[in-house]
């Protein structure tokens, strides 16, 4: 069964390659664009829900605005008139709301809508997966129709990055997300409304004439669901679609064909190898340093991502600006790695594998079987480790298996779900309060890493109001993470997209993307403000 799957995949790739070559031979042009203002995009999967209380940062941003939104320079105010302000100890955040905004059903946006949305997420009866993100939030109060005050149980400098929740009209909020009408009939203040949902095929979005930022130039967005990547590539080439998200290698291949152009956006979306300290090998800091030195990150970026990524050594990525510490990084130095392992007592045995006290340096590494980037990364890592005399067995798993085994098995971790503040990017992955395995929270600190200095810096930065001091805390954090690494952080991805005929629109903005992405991101992120 597995073999047939592999052969099928191979054949499919062969067809795709043939197709691309065939098209090179016949450079006929794509169907002419009559300057119409319809944008046709191919999405990877059908949406299950459009309810903004279930997830942030996605297609919901076309229907809903949030208090704070992602912009080219990080977060910027959207339904707020300016960035939220806090009291001195960062436990009370005040947001002033715009007074010129209406929902798509005609009702006027005000503070009650904001309160209703955040209270709904906190209410267990809503059953929202986002509730865990608002654990510090204890109160939401409308002090007047255009002012909302958020009260927290502890100081939290990163709170604005949690104000990206899409705000639905308050009369549509209530009940469980499972049967909320918002899943299928969004009512928000955003630039588009949903005009058609062809089950299993597509959705059609129509621009609002009365959008508070001005009616969008693109008046129709058609989003087709094409889950197979080869089919997506073919339909782009055939002119059915104007753009799609594709993996780096396929995007590279299509670049320049049939008027298609590749676009890349930076992301906070990183990958790393967890080194669970429940395994005897990884309790020793020197061993973890050795594994980091023995990993050829740049080769992985070039090979697996076709160059569309950046080698990193900690979860704080270059897109964090002044909080990023370029000096805190591991070079590729297998010789030093080998001598560190020798010093630590892991010496090469007769079989070429290191061992200490009769224990062979051999461990399993899990990756999600459907994720090719993670698979390739696991293979490359295993091969680097083999050069050091360490045996890595690859283990393709599904999500339930990963959750169950993660406490005692190394894992190719994905990160960067909210990459607009170093706190949301790193706290859960590194703080010792998440070190104990919790089946309800298996992916937080999966290495069971515990370092008092790291804890102190993370907590200090979380309660620090001054941006410069905060950035300095995070730079110091990275130095400590290189001295005592929790895992092997390998690279941060750039997300790759392919599109045609975008020259006529401006501005095409490049924003930092989170882990979750799709056609709501890419060069179309700000489609509503194209002119």
């Amino acid at each position, binding site marked *: 069964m597995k073999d047939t799957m592999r052969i099928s995949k191979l054949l499919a790739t062969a067809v795709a390659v043939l197709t691309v070559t065939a098209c090179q031979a016949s450079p006929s042009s794509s169907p002419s664009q009559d300057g119409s203002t319809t944008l046709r995009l191919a999405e990877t999967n059908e949406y299950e829900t459009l309810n903004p209380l279930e997830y942030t940062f996605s297609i919901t941003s076309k229907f809903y605005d949030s208090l704070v939104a992602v912009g080219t320079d990080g977060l910027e105010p959207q339904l707020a008139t300016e960035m939220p302000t806090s009291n001195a100890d960062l436990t009370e955040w005040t947001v002033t709301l715009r007074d010129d905004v209406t929902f798509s059903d005609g009702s006027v946006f005000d503070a009650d809508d904001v309160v209703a949305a955040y209270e709904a997420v906190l209410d267990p009866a809503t059953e929202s997966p986002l509730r865990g*993100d608002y654990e510090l939030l204890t109160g939401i109060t409308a002090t007047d129709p255009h002012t909302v005050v958020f009260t927290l149980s502890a100081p939290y400098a990163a709170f604005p990055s949690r104000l990206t929740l899409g705000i639905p009209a308050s009369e549509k909020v209530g009940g469980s997300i499972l049967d909320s009408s918002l899943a299928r009939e969004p009512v928000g203040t955003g630039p588009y409304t949903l005009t058609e949902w062809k089950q*299993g*095929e597509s959705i059609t979005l129509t621009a609002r004439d009365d959008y508070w930022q001005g009616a969008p130039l693109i008046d129709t967005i058609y989003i087709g669901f094409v889950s197979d990547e080869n089919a997506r590539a073919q339909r782009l080439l055939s002119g059915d679609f104007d753009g799609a998200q594709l993996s780096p290698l396929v995007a590279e291949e299509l670049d320049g064909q049939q008027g298609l152009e590749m676009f890349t956006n930076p992301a906070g979306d990183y990958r790393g190898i967890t080194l669970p300290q429940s395994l005897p090998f990884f309790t020793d800091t020197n061993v973890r340093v050795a594994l980091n030195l023995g990993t050829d990150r740049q080769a992985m970026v070039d090979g697996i991502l076709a160059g569309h990524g950046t080698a990193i050594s900690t979860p704080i990525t270059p897109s964090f600006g002044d909080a990023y510490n370029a000096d805190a990084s591991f070079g590729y130095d297998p010789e030093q790695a080998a001598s560190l392992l020798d010093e630590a007592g892991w010496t090469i045995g007769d079989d070429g594998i290191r061992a200490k006290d009769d224990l062979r340096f051999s461990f399993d590494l899990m990756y999600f079987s459907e994720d090719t980037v993670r698979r390739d990364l696991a293979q490359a890592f295993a091969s680097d480790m083999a050069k050091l005399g360490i045996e890595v067995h690859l283990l393709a798993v599904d999500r*339930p298996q990963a959750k169950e085994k993660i406490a005692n098995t190394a894992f190719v971790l994905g990160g960067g779900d909210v990459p607009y503040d170093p706190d949301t990017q790193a706290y859960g992955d590194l703080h010792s309060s998440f070190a104990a395995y919790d089946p309800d929270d298996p992916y937080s600190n999966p290495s069971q890493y515990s370092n008092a200095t790291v804890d102190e810096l993370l907590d200090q930065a979380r309660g620090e109001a001054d941006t410069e001091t905060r950035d300095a805390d995070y730079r110091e954090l990275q130095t400590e993470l290189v001295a005592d690494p929790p895992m092997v952080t390998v690279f941060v991805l750039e997300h790759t997209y392919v599109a045609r005929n975008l020259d006529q629109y401006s501005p095409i903005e490049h924003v930092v993307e989170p882990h979750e992405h799709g056609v709501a991101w890419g060069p179309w992120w700000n489609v509503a403000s194209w002119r």
Partner: protein
Amino acid sequence: MSATSIVVGGRSGRTGRRGRASAIGWLVVRRLGWLIPLLAALSLLVFALAELSPVDATAAFLGSRDEFVSAGGRANVEQAVTQLPWWQAWLQWIGGILTGDPGYSMSARMPVADVVSARLPWTVLLMITGLALGFAISIPLAMMAARRPHGLVSQVLDRVMWVIAAVPPFLVGLTLVAVFALGLRLLPSGGTSTPGMPATATELVRHMVLPAGAVAVGQLPWITLHLRKALIETSGDPGVRAARLRGVPEWRVLGRHILPGAMIPVLAITGARLTEVIAGSVLVEQIFSWPGLGQSLVNAALAQDFPLLGVVSMLLAAIALVGGIMSDVALALLDPRTDPREL
């Protein structure tokens, strides 16, 4: 079931025409009577299997977000997706079916009835068109091959059909797109209408050619090979020989005497093969963004969405079973030698 029942001896259908019709009516009633308990038992099995599968409903519900949902949110979702034990879920579900309410789909976030009414017509349309197209291509091929059973045409056809039989349906789909949509630019490559264009009948027909073609290609081998065999066997019949001796032109012999007889066993097999047509359509739907039930079935299974899984699998099973009945009825109508009471 039908494959064995076609082997009937010389038992004559000497019963009168009216008697025969009522016997066929009885056959249908009998079979339909079986259909309901069979479907009920099958649905119980589907629920039990779904329960046994290692699928984690919470992880499935969250999909790629699973890795990023922290404790509070996960507890919420677990509470949302928690279900009754499978047999209680089944009792509740079957009770709902009997009272006309097939329940609410967790994975599609809408009533099961809405999912089915939006998607079932597309699957049925694709299947029927694909099968009809398969027959339209297979019949002339098989007739050509049957004229010289050991000739070159027959041998080449044999090889080609075995190769086609070995190719997975989704690859057939991708190849058709590569050739007809990309290479020749003759046909659209997916969906039911051109993105951004109004959905018209012409649009639909154009969009159906490739997916129906992909389904048809998947059915070509067994139709062609079975039909060729049946054609060869039938051409030895005394009636056919007599017709030839009478000097009836060969094309007329083929069309009037050989083909109808040869179609009988092939039609009988078609009913039994419907499950395969459905399975092929599910994959083809994926490639061509065809809005049928296939994707729903996969999603429902992965999400342990019992109500949707139950209804969709029952429907697909019912199509296959009704197909079996229809092929037996066709057999009884076409072949006077069969006795409907024995089917």
